[in-house]
């Protein structure tokens, strides 16, 4: 599209619009309404429904406004042309001849464009008295969507969305003429994780949700703007509630986050909110059994026990775990409680973002990256909307996607190259890439590093051929990747949590910085898989950081916060999660408070350690494995029942709002922490814990965190607030980072790689009934070489054995994984694969044994 503007006359009104836009767009900018069905602002126009017919002077016949480009001085008649008005009326009548009179039982009724236009422009009565055409009704396309072919008006929106955005070509038109219908290809069911969006864009009730099916009429829903809590993207959503139950989730447009789309997990997995398993009353362990109690009893007991521990063992005998799933307000208050009331820095959360990671600067900005490198990160399962933006970059601008992952992920479909590596080989892989980039790119790249000459000596050891045995990446793939990187104009490196586990945070990021400094305009972004991973870190739920990532060791900051909170903050360094575990096991920790996480489910070591804590308080939605070990269990409100903010993977603060009441006596996290604090502080300090709502907590957060000054719930608004990207000082020197491949263990020759699936059996998704039908049965992917070595065939039942225990799986033999590793999806098997993993989480080595 050029920058020129042209002038068109629409219904006598002069309209200026950019050259190359369509008549429909020109009319819309002038506020002239042209009815449409097939046209959708986010899709390429096709002109299939003929509803937008207009008269253009000088052109024969009527034209479809959605496909006709404007010319200078074009004269268009929309509502002033009798022929066009008549044609549009006739078109509605034609569409309605075979459209069933289903409106009373149709889930689209009430928000249906066809219904609205039939009421507005359509004939009051049909002249068509013959039997309507019959096609398939109630025709399930997948576990999530049901199709009514009779209602379909063949606008292609669903087909075009799956083609243009999701790149999942799973729906198409079949048959000819009057028999034309939408269907899937024989033997290829609809599997796209974006299929739910076709429900929203369907202009009739042809595609409807099987989860929302007949749950409510749309006008009965109370709609609350909120944010999806299931991954780090934080898609903007609307919760539709009827009778204190979340009936459906629909997307809300936010061009900085999710455009107008959401993934099927976010849309369909809300079943957990209203699940009967939700904790409804506080529970106290009496005579070894957890029994219902009142809030008074539970909070008084916790206060008394914590005070007793404080007297006997001092503040360092207590610890707390926040969560990267709960709100900023809860996390902030938890660390404030631990630091101010108890006086300890023992506060952390599981899955903390590694030190050195930076947030992604912008989601829509992904579209304009020409090379996207995925390092140990699988956006398709960890943060699906990121995948959609990557696909946009690939499909519309021809971006390349390089994938460094032990197994092939979905985004490998764009040709990669796929750089498979064994965990622990990250540094070797990156050094190999640095070396290959220098070899391929010659002078340009070398000139970017100030110390290139001295670095060449240590890089000598990392030719692609020498790297291959270190990390398992084929030399040819490395060279190919280097060629892509050298030519990249704006490469983006997306780092996932798995990337830093094998080699350690510092080394993994140093090696990555070596590579990025050689390239043009490179950026690194961390893709956090959890809803509030950045938030938990920002709120100071970490032993070494106060809110706003202000270091605890800095006496000046400590003094400032001490006076702000009105107490003397402890200078004793706190324990992180990895430090808490041995402390539990040695009996040094006497009391622990866990909010919104389930460490006992993640690993056996953690479960064993938590059993040794004399006083454990767990605050959660469900009776998790950790909760069964607790002395007191507190029921908390879910994201649909509380007010608060979440920080997404670009650092964007977004608000969640209560859409319904919590079940039973469950209470929001901020209320619980505040109430407990008020029971424990002396009366003159009570005022500092006088929070009336989550909003007042946020007001304090905005005062404590320097970058958040002046923010409030009002300023966050519907679209949220994003901080300006931090100016990272680019390094000019290559830092020597040597590869340190993990030592082999003859007893356990294989490395265990775990990864998320989009649909799993986690605490929340386990309670989303239909989604559960999409979760595969537990499997392990092994390389053909491994299969030969162990004499195992595809489909065999095997035991996967680590030093911690053994679990049964079914084997899938595939060369889409690096030899020497096995892949097991997280949260799918029961007991969980965490049983094999030892904490602190690093590399887990396993072996296979055939089940007899």
């Amino acid at each position, binding site marked *: 599209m050029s920058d020129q503007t042209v002038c068109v006359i629409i219904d006598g009104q002069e309209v200026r619009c950019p050259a190359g836009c369509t008549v429909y767009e020109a009319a819309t900018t002038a506020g002239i309404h042209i009815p449409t069905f097939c046209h959708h602002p986010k899709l390429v126009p096709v002109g299939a429904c003929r509803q937008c017919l207009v008269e253009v002077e000088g052109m024969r016949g009527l034209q479809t406004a959605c496909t006709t480009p404007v010319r200078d001085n074009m004269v268009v008649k929309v509502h002033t042309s009798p022929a066009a008005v008549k044609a549009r009326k006739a078109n509605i009548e034609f569409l309605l001849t075979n459209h069933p009179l289903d409106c009373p*039982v149709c889930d689209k009724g009430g928000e249906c464009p066809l219904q609205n236009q039939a009421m507005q422009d359509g004939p009051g009565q049909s002249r068509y008295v013959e039997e309507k055409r019959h096609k398939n009704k109630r025709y399930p396309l997948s576990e999530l969507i049901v199709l009514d072919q009779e209602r379909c008006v063949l606008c292609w929106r669903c087909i075009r969305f799956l083609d243009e955005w999701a790149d999942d070509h799973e729906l198409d038109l079949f048959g000819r003429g009057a028999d034309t219908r939408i269907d899937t290809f024989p033997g290829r069911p609809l599997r796209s994780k974006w299929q739910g969006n076709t429900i929203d864009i369907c202009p009739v009730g042809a595609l409807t949700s099987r989860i929302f099916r007949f749950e409510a009429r749309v006008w009965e829903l109370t709609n609350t703007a909120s944010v999806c809590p299931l991954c780090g993207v934080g898609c903007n959503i609307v919760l539709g509630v009827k009778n204190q139950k979340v009936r459906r989730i629909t997307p809300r447009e936010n061009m900085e986050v999710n455009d107008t789309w959401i993934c099927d997990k976010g849309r369909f997995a809300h079943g957990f909110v209203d699940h009967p398993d939700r904790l409804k009353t506080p529970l106290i362990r009496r005579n070894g059994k957890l029994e219902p109690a009142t809030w008074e009893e539970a909070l008084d007991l916790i206060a008394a026990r914590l005070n007793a521990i404080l007297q006997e063992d001092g503040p360092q005998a207590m610890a707390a775990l926040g969560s990267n799933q709960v709100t900023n307000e809860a996390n902030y208050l938890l660390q404030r409680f631990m630091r101010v009331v108890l006086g300890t820095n023992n506060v952390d959360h599981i899955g903390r973002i590694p030190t050195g990671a930076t947030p992604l600067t912008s989601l829509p900005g992904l579209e304009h990256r020409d090379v996207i490198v995925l390092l140990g990160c699988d956006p398709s399962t960890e943060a699906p909307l990121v995948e959609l933006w990557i696909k946009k970059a690939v499909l519309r601008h021809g971006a390349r996607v390089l994938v460094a992952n032990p197994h092939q992920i979905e985004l490998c479909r764009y040709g990669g190259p796929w750089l498979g590596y064994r965990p622990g080989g990250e540094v070797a892989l990156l050094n190999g890439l640095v070396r290959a980039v220098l070899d391929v790119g010659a002078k340009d790249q070398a000139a970017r590093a100030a110390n290139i000459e001295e670095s060449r000596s240590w890089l000598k050891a990392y030719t692609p051929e020498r790297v291959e045995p270190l990390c398992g990446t084929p030399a040819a793939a490395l060279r190919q990747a280097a060629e892509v990187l050298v030519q990249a104009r704006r490469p983006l490196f997306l780092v996932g949590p798995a990337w830093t586990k094998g080699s350690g945070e510092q080394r993994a990021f140093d090696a990555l910085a070596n590579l990025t400094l050689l390239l043009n305009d490179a950026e690194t972004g961390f893709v956090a898989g959890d809803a509030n991973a950045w938030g938990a870190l920002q709120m100071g739920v970490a032993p070494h950081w106060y809110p706003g990532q202000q270091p605890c060791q800095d006496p000046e900051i400590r003094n400032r916060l001490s006076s702000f909170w009105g107490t003397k903050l402890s200078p004793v360094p706190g324990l992180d999660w990895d430090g808490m575990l041995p402390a539990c096991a040695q009996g040094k920790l006497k009391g622990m408070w866990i909010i919104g996480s389930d460490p006992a489910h993640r690993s056996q070591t953690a479960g064993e350690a938590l059993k040794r804590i004399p006083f454990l308080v767990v605050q959660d939605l469900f009776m998790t494995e950790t909760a069964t070990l607790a002395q007191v269990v507190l029921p908390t409100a879910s994201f649909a029942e509380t007010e608060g903010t979440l920080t997404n993977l670009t650092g964007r603060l977004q608000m969640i709002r209560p859409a319904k009441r919590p079940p039973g006596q469950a209470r929001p996290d901020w209320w619980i922490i505040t109430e407990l604090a008020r029971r424990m502080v002396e009366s003159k300090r009570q005022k500092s814990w006088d929070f009336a709502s989550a909003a007042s907590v946020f007001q304090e957060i905005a005062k404590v965190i320097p970058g958040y000054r002046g923010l409030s719930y009002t300023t966050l608004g519907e679209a949220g607030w994003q901080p300006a990207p931090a100016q990272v000082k680019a390094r000019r020197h290559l830092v020597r980072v040597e590869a340190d491949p993990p030592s082999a263990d003859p007893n356990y020759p294989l490395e265990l790689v775990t990864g998320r699936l989009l649909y799993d059996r986690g605490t929340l998704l386990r309670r989303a009934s239909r989604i559960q039908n999409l979760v595969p049965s537990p499997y392990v992917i092994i390389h053909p070489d491994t299969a030969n070595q162990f004499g195992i065939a595809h489909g065999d039942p095997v035991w996967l054995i680590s030093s911690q225990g053994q679990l049964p799986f079914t084997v899938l033999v595939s060369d889409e994984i690096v030899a020497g590793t096995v892949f097991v999806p997280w949260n799918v098997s029961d007991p969980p694969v965490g049983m094999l993993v030892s904490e602190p989480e690093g590399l887990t080595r396993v072996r296979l044994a055939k089940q007899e």
Partner: protein
Amino acid sequence: MVRDAIVGFWHILRAMGMTLKYFFTKPVTVQYPEQPVRLYPRFRGRHELRRYEEGPYQGLERCIGCALCAAYCPTQCIYVQAGENQDGVQRSPGERYAEIYEINLLRCMFCGYCEEACPTGAIVLRRQFALADYSRDRLIYTQDRLLTPSEPHAIILDDRAGSEQERRPGVSGKPKG
């Protein structure tokens, strides 16, 4: 003062005379339920959910759970939760039926708009007016009770003969329509 007493006495006599007059006329009250009440043909009493009495859908509920009655109801006294007919267990024709259908008669003002909104003629206001009960909960009528027909002991006046002389004295208001 004497004058006031006389006037007052005269008023009492007049009032007693009126009472005495009705002592000798036919009473307007009916010994219900022993005696029938006379109802106008368009009288709107308690709601009933109907079933198909004949044809291919015989025995099925007419209600398809579309909740248009609830949408139209000015007092919002109807609650509908729809369900999906499973193969083999058909409660109504088509895909959808009312899983829960409740009317709060404490709120209902018997306007009959629900009847007007219903696309299948499922909900009708029949003639049952004897709705008094001992508990408020019982006055939230559930689906099974609404599906059970109930007729009061009544004589229905003929529409055409519903002329002035058949009207009970003291009842104002015209028959609907």
